[in-house]
């Protein structure tokens, strides 16, 4: 499994409020691959975000669906640095009026 595969999986996970993938929204901070392990660090727009567990579960499930069986998938929430709109993809920035 490559980093691009993980990105492809995360591209299918939407923030249900925005109707756009967590990847496009710039919520994914880092992807680390080791033998048999996938680690993802992501954030939410707010630490009070009630949907955070839902989105984390969806992200882990999407990666597991693509990963070889038995892969240890760990999706973690981090709050530092805080999310900013500049992290969004060009497509997201266009949809939400930034460009």
């Amino acid at each position, binding site marked *: 499994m490559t980093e691009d595969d993980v990105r492809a999986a995360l591209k299918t996970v*939407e923030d*249900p*409020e*925005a*109707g756009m993938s967590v990847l496009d*929204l710039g919520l994914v901070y880092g992807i680390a691959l080791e033998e048999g392990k996938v680690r993802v660090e992501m954030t939410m*727009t*707010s*630490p*009070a*975000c*009630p*949907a*955070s*567990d*839902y989105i984390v*579960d969806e992200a882990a499930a999407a990666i597991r669906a693509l990963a070889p069986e038995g892969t240890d998938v760990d999706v973690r929430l981090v*709050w530092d640095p*805080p*999310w900013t*709109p500049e992290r*969004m993809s060009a497509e*997201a920035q266009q*949809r*939400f*009026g*930034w460009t």
Partner: protein
Amino acid sequence: MAYRFPLLALGFVSLAFGVAGGLARLSPLAVPATALALHGPLMVSAFFGTVISLERAAALGRPWALAAPLAAGLGGAALLLGLPMAGFGLMVLAAAVFVLCGAVIMRRQPSLETAALLAGAAAWLAGNVMLLEGRAAVPWWIAFFALTIGGERLELSRYLRRPPWVRRAFAFLAFAVFFSALVPQALGVALMALAAWLVAFDLARVTIRQDRLPRYVAACLLAGYFWLGLGGALMALATAYDAALHAVFVGFVFSMVFGHAPVILPAVLRIRYPYHPLLYLPLAVLHASLAVRVFVAAPLGAWGNAAAIALFIAVSICLILVKGRK
């Protein structure tokens, strides 16, 4: 995780009796005297209080935060058992823990959004203290919902490009909502202004043009903002008390619950809740029956409101069972 479901179930006991008590106020229906007399505390602090504080505890991820939904749920049970002061005391405790949750979240990421959520928590606490003291709790409860929902919507509107004054306007409105809870007519004006802000700047304006779940959530939100504005107008005019309150509590708050259940329930209970267009049915019944309640006949509309809530629960259970547990 396993304890979250019983907590939610406890909140739903208060919902069932609270709705029955509300109906009994408008039409002949045999319900326990406590449910009739304490409709407001059962709905706001026992049901919504349990659900909202459980949602916040799940977001926070700290076990002590569950003391808030536990106390709110037990508070409702105490009311139903004929122990009003114990119930009100538990509701104060629930709100105090909820304020602490808000403070921890604000410390984690200080911002206008988290400040609004903390102010909402403080308004719930103020309302429950008023309840304990036998004074008017309702304006504070309305401020609780307006600030909590407003804060969450402000957070999501960060996806959108907005001029800086839009945030400053929200800060002013949040301030106005909190402090005008002391003067219900002023609160009505503040709610109208907040509703206008939400209609103008919320992310729902964009997502209503998408499809599936984002569009459904946006429909729930935008319909809710209409009722928030109307409820605010009725409060400002100091007229039609039942219509004003239920425009806010049913039209704004329940619409929000209908919209967010498919997102929040999976987060809180770790279950699958797939979107289906059938969700529009209870939503339509809710808003149509509220229109009947406000403009035509309150008792008939109230039964329609109750039917919409029951229908929503039935549709939700069907959708969850069809996809099964994770």
